[in-house]
């Protein structure tokens, strides 16, 4: 192990790690809206809308993220969809994680006892008020846990964005290996950075979980 080299390249890798965080955070942010929209569409009264949302979720979950990236980035220009690598990574990541997240959110909402909904409705709350004040606070704990797991998966999947030439952690590591010929040192360092990022995500999830379940007794 060449520790001098590791110290020398650390700043470059930290910079790239920031891109990894950036791309994952943006994908998570937009993915959350896509997921919420999918949950609403899946419970729509119009059957084709429901059917479309389910088909979308099934196809996205049924095909590899790797192939989705390649399809949109290299295949996209053929139908006039030209995205720069970073945007493409965010967009595909958001649409991919959105499908998984919609299932997580739906599962959390369905885990709340249906009696809660019925009791609240019969007390005169509307559909949305019930959702806001009765269902969501109870579903929040489970929702944060499962979305947290997905966030970790998203960070790890962001390494795949390197194949469409976004200079994130894995791509930067490969570039550095190209110039230093020291794969072991560079990969060890980048693995450590992933571990740090994922530890931070785990910590945030734990914090939010505690806050969300402050007043619930489970």
């Amino acid at each position, binding site marked *: 192990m060449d520790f001098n080299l590791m110290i020398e390249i650390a700043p470059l890798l930290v910079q790239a790690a920031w891109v990894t965080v950036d791309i994952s955070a943006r994908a998570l942010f937009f993915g959350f809206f896509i997921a919420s929209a999918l949950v609403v569409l899946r419970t729509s009264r119009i059957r084709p809308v429901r059917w479309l949302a389910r088909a979308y979720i099934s*196809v996205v*979950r*049924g*095909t*590899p*993220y*790797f*192939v*989705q990236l*390649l*399809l949109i980035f*290299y*295949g996209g220009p*053929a*139908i006039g969809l030209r995205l720069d690598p970073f945007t493409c990574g965010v967009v595909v990541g958001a649409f991919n994680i959105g499908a998984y997240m919609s299932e997580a959110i739906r599962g959390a909402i369905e885990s709340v006892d249906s009696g809660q909904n019925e009791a609240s409705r019969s007390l005169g709350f509307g559909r949305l008020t019930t959702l806001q004040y009765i269902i969501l606070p109870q579903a929040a704990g489970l929702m944060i846990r499962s979305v947290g797991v997905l966030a970790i998966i998203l*960070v*790890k*999947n*962001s*390494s*795949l964005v*390197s*194949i469409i030439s976004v200079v994130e952690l*894995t791509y930067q*590591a*490969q570039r550095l*290996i190209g110039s230093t010929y020291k*794969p*072991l040192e560079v*990969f*060890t360092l*980048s*693995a450590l950075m*992933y*571990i740090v990022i*994922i*530890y931070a995500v785990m910590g945030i999830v734990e914090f939010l979980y505690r806050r969300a379940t402050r007043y619930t007794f489970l």
Partner: protein
Amino acid sequence: MEFDFSPVIDYLPVLLQGVGVTLLIGVAVAVMSVVGGQIVAVITLYTRKMVNWPLRFFIWLFMTTPLLLQLYFLYFGIGEWILIPAIVVGVLGLGFHYMAYNADIFIATIKSVSSGQYEASRSLGFGHLATLFYVVLPQAFNRALPQLSNNMIIMVKDISVLSAIGIGEMVYVSQYAISVTFRPFEFYITITVIYYLINLMMEAGQTWIERRAAYRS
């Protein structure tokens, strides 16, 4: 631009070869990760903490770093000393990755088997190992099945990542075909459909296995 699927038909034999490689790797990794995960889980649960910390570290390490990085590490990092063939690295890397995930599931399900089962079996005269093999592990395995098949469905999709270290599976052969024919959209759509079909079959298999497990227990 117009779609022209005739190059896809020309390259269909090559693509099917890639599908074959994907399926073979899938079977090998499934066997390795389930058997290995079971062993890791049993050792982690039934030996002293001093003995099993390397295994717990192994699970932790594989769950917190990305698969692509693990593959690069095994192929290019270890390759500094010994060059292992890509296919071996691919199967081992993916196998270890999912072994860690499966071990985590097995640990949870083995713990969920009521301790009364263990005590009853011991008091009926079974030894420690016999109790594990005939009483605890079969029940734990049945409970692990839904999550296990879920993991395997995710695993089949992750085989596409192996193309990054040059294994000739579906994505790799289609990238090759694209570099010759310049028809990315058609080829990627084709393999997307193939992946989806494989997935549908695996989902059907999952419901079948779950129904059988529910019937047996």
